[in-house]
């Protein structure tokens, strides 16, 4: 059967093969255990590091492969086929790494990017707070200059890889009167004085990833840890998210592919009323809908990622579309997969139950899908005002 041809280069196909091999050999055999025990996947992170995938998007002079958003998406999709909790840990390192790559000084890049590219140190991105979720301008963490240091105070919430990562890119307010323009980004390292972690959160799914508070209590960091300029924090966060969001779309696609594979496999072998249930039109139409929306999501995500790599600016709208469409699809497909497996689908001994629990986060993190709609709507308003 002919599949859609996305015209991958030989190198891109290598990345796909390598990430799929990791998913098959290293992730799938242990994913249920990691989920059950809320276990952080250090072994798999080391495997991914050894396979060189942490360095995909990082320039060659820092030990990376100088690939783009698209190649990162290809890797994410294949890893997500195995487990999106594991993949989120991998993806969070890029989310935390991009601000350094995009806005870091030469000195900061030389200091941090080689370790990020080799996977020696994980990175985390700290924006969200208890009172600043969708409204990131409501950040209450503050940063004040004190001689040769910055002093940070406040608490970040629900930070992926909290406690496990060693490098944190954090947004704090330097001038509350200026609103979003008064936010500044910093690099904080595990071990900095006054920097600690809250308890590990218990979640609905995504259990193999670590989610904690970051607590800054008179946290003193050297002056040269500021990222970009004073007041650029919000811009840095938004630019980072614009590049990262197609990646969430890819994770959604990989997860949905895994759920579809399970659903079709089951529907072909489950006998009811004397025949495989896939022979019933009710199921065929469900599966057809799942497969078609999945492929449409993949095509959109790939196209958006390639557009970003083409160097286009102001990609907020299309990045949001890729995230919105693919993650809503993934929630539906994983839910339908559970439905097709029926009672078995609801049992923990079959993998689709975890897939459905995990899928929900995709519609929430890196900007809720309602915020994605806002971004798209505002962009349309701007676009059409110019016409």
């Amino acid at each position: 059967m002919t599949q859609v041809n996305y015209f991958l280069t030989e190198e891109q196909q290598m990345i796909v093969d390598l990430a799929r091999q990791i998913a098959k050999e290293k992730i799938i055999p242990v994913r249920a255990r990691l989920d059950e025990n809320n276990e952080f996947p250090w072994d798999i992170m080391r495997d991914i590091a050894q396979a060189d995938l942490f360095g995909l998007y990082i320039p060659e002079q820092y030990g990376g492969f100088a690939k783009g958003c698209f190649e990162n998406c290809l890797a994410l999709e294949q890893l997500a086929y195995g487990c999106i909790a594991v993949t989120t840990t991998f993806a969070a390192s890029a989310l935390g790494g991009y601000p350094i790559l995009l806005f870091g000084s030469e000195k900061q890049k030389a200091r941090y990017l080689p370790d990020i590219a080799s996977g020696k140190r994980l990175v985390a991105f700290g924006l969200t707070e208890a009172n600043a979720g969708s409204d990131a301008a409501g950040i209450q963490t503050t940063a004040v200059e004190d001689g040769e240091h910055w002093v940070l105070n406040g608490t970040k919430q629900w930070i992926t890889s909290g406690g496990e990562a060693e490098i944190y890119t954090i947004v704090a307010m330097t001038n509350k009167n200026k609103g979003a323009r008064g936010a500044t980004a910093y690099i904080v390292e595990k071990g900095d004085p006054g920097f600690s972690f809250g308890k590990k959160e218990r979640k609905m799914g995504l259990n193999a990833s670590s989610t904690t508070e970051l607590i800054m209590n008179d946290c003193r960091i050297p002056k040269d840890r500021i990222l970009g300029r004073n007041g650029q924090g919000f811009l840095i966060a938004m630019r980072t998210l614009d590049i990262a969001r197609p990646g969430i779309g890819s994770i959604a696609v990989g997860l949905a592919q895994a759920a579809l594979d399970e659903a079709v496999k089951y529907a072909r072998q489950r006998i009811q009323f004397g025949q495989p249930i896939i022979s019933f039109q009710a199921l065929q139409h469900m599966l057809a809908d799942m497969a078609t929306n999945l492929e449409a999501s993949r095509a959109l995500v790939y196209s958006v990622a390639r557009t970003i790599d083409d160097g286009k600016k102001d990609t907020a709208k299309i990045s949001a579309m890729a995230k919105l469409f693919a993650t809503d699809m993934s929630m539906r497909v994983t839910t339908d997969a559970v439905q097709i497996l029926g009672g078995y689908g609801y049992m923990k001994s079959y993998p689709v139950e975890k897939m459905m629990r995990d899928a929900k986060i995709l519609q929430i993190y890196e900007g809720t899908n309602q915020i994605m709609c806002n971004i798209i709507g505002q962009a349309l308003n701007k676009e059409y005002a110019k016409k």
Partner: protein
Amino acid sequence: MNIVVCIKQVPNAKTVRYDTEKGTLVREGVEAIINPFDFHALEAGLHLKDAYGGEVTVLSMGPPQAENALRESLSLGADKGVLLSDRAFAGADTLATTYTLAKAIEKLGPVDLVLCGKQAIDGDTAQVGPGLAARLGLPYVTCVNALSVMDDEKTIQVRRINEDGYDILELEMPALLTVLASINTPRLPSLKGKMMARKTEIPIWDAEGIGAKPSMVGLTGSATRVVSTWVPTFEARREMFGGSAEEQVDALVSRLKAAGIL
């Protein structure tokens, strides 16, 4: 440390089918993989290279497509791959295979350690490792599941698994070992390795290139012939005993006695 790892490309046992009429394996359309034991031999070699430096050369005799197995080895970190491929090599049994491999290893130059998998999953003879050691005049140990290099970096200590337990043995390099799957967990390829593997040239050596005598290679150089292969038939019969429990026990005892089991 100069290490040579011998690998064989074999059909994936999980997907292979059997033609019952012809009595042969259906190889068309079957995925070819590196013999699983050889993966562990390669990992053992790469592990030693990581610790002590040197070079790992992977050697395989087979048809031109066995080049894929060598490229896969390069993507895992091997430095060089050499393919022994010649129509004259076809149909080789273990006698001819060990002769051919030995000639190639001699051509490669001084070697400290030759590593092989315990056996190939298609032929299952487990003769190539020991046979090759005999050809090369090297001391060897089979069924190794642990390996360490002593402080002098000339002696190796190995653990050989046998039916009753294990032996700890020391031998001086150069030497040959065949390894079990339990010796290590093979690494994954890396992207760098895959990119390198794509670019690396893999030389193909033929019989003339390794200075092999035509009478010693392939089917001509083989002492054995596969006359026929077949799937053994397996018949299970059953007998049901009736009557009371006592009668059934009596019947069972007399049947077991008649069969010479009791």
